[in-house]
């Protein structure tokens, strides 16, 4: 099967059972359709996304598995992080399980999947700021901005400062005891 695919694509053999194809965004549907119809990679097992903010792209991997579940094929493509070109067509018509995977990526990275009508809340609720898995999203800043400390925790101190203070106190106490001796 891999031999047939090698006639059409440049395949990187990552291990004996893991292969990777790099494609352009324009070839996305054509490639998926071709592989879906002409190979035994029949299952979409995962869609992964990595944010390469320094290159201003998201790299997605559509991971397909054979019917025997003995080989995996990663179909990798990069899309711009922003703008019209950052959208991708849905794969719902080929794999029903793509629905939940696309929903997840939409929520975590803000990627639009054209044709998927269920891109609503997944694990988050009423999220109205930067999608959280984008590199520019600052978790700590978000938490400090959104939440207050519970009542009764007003004396909350910086751990490092407090440790220093306690050590200094202990040192003083020890010095006093030695003077008494």
């Amino acid at each position: 099967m891999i031999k047939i695919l090698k006639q059409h694509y440049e395949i990187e053999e990552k291990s004996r059972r893991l292969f990777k194809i790099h494609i352009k965004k324009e070839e996305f549907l054509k490639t998926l359709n071709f592989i879906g119809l002409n190979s035994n990679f029949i299952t979409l097992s995962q869609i992964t996304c990595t944010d390469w903010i320094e290159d201003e792209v998201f790299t997605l991997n559509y991971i397909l598995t054979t019917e025997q579940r003995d080989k995996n094929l990663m179909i990798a493509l990069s899309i711009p992080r922003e703008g019209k070109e950052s959208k991708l067509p849905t794969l719902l018509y080929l794999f029903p399980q793509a629905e939940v995977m696309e929903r997840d990526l939409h929520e975590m990275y803000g990627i639009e999947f054209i044709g998927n009508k269920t891109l609503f809340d997944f694990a988050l609720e009423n999220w109205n700021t930067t999608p959280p898995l984008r590199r520019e999203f600052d978790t700590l800043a978000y938490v400090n901005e959104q939440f207050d400390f519970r009542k009764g925790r007003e004396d909350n101190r910086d751990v490092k400062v407090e440790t220093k203070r306690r050590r200094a106190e202990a040192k003083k106490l020890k010095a006093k005891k030695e003077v008494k001796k």
Partner: protein
Amino acid sequence: MIAKDNRVIKIFHGPQHPGITGNMSVELDLVGETIQKARTHVGYLHRGFEKLIERRTIIQAFTIVCRICVPEPDPNEENFARAIEGLAGIEISHRAKYIRVMVLEMARVAAQMLWMGGQSGSVGLGTVAQWSIYDRDLILDLFEELTGGRVYHMYIYPGGVRRELPDGFLERLGKVLDHIEEKMPQYDALFFENSTFKKRAIGVGIIDKDLALKEGLVGQALRGCGIKRDVRKDNPYLVYDELDFDIPTFEGCDVYARAMVRRAEIKESVKILRQVIQKMPKEGEIMQKIPKHRKFKIPKDDILVSTESARGEFNYYMAGDGTEKIRRMQVKGPSLIHGFTLLEKLLVNEELSNVAMIMNSLGICPPEIER
């Protein structure tokens, strides 16, 4: 909520329902007792692990991964370690591989015992849970002795495992296996052959066998349809190819078939563990030399690793960028598809009283969905 026509009732099954498998909720549209539509909601336990891991070194991330699925931490540790080893080109010793298989199979038996408690509870057989949780505790005792932790072990680390086996550990493991084998006929009488369970489970939650492979189902959802798929055989890792074991399947595609597959899998895990006790090399490093934690740079590359958990195939995708931090780690457990695509479909036309039972049979663990 009652709709205007006074006919469709919308209820939320969970996240606090005792029959739910964890912190998730299923929104059900009911006519009488029959479900017309089901929608899964997660997010009650979103801890942002994948985001946290992007900011941590390997040893810092390592303490997080086991928490991705509470009842089954070890396949996560194995995936994490194997992904790092794959990217960094580390080969672990034969002995360490055997120890890892031992840990993974112990974890499988423990997870199946916990499942037995949940599945039996969903049909009102409370006694089974008291027995199975006790038996699970015997394995947790061994884990405590080996790793220092009962639930989260933090034992399988890139390069091998973190601690040598204590003296006499394998003998004690053998005794626990004897006990579990002796107990299985009692579980059969009390649970697997129990007429109450059979009446409730046979013909309920039937999966479409023709679509099971294409739609990405894994574990007992597949094997309960008679489809023999298991990562340990199909894409072997560690030393599974040196061990003799079967992949049990059962025809029926229903809750009962999935339960019987699990029952047979306990037997197979015991068989594997007995071979591990026999074959484990006496000599060999348990941990390879790896760079110091703060200097452990992950090459710029990506990898996909899979482990067969007690509930099915567990995948980790990992990408490195040449720094000490993991650029991206994406987790995909069995629950993502089982809890959404499959569950939402299976619940339609089922009775409300069967929801908890069907959910349990699919092995859904919500924390691994929202990781």
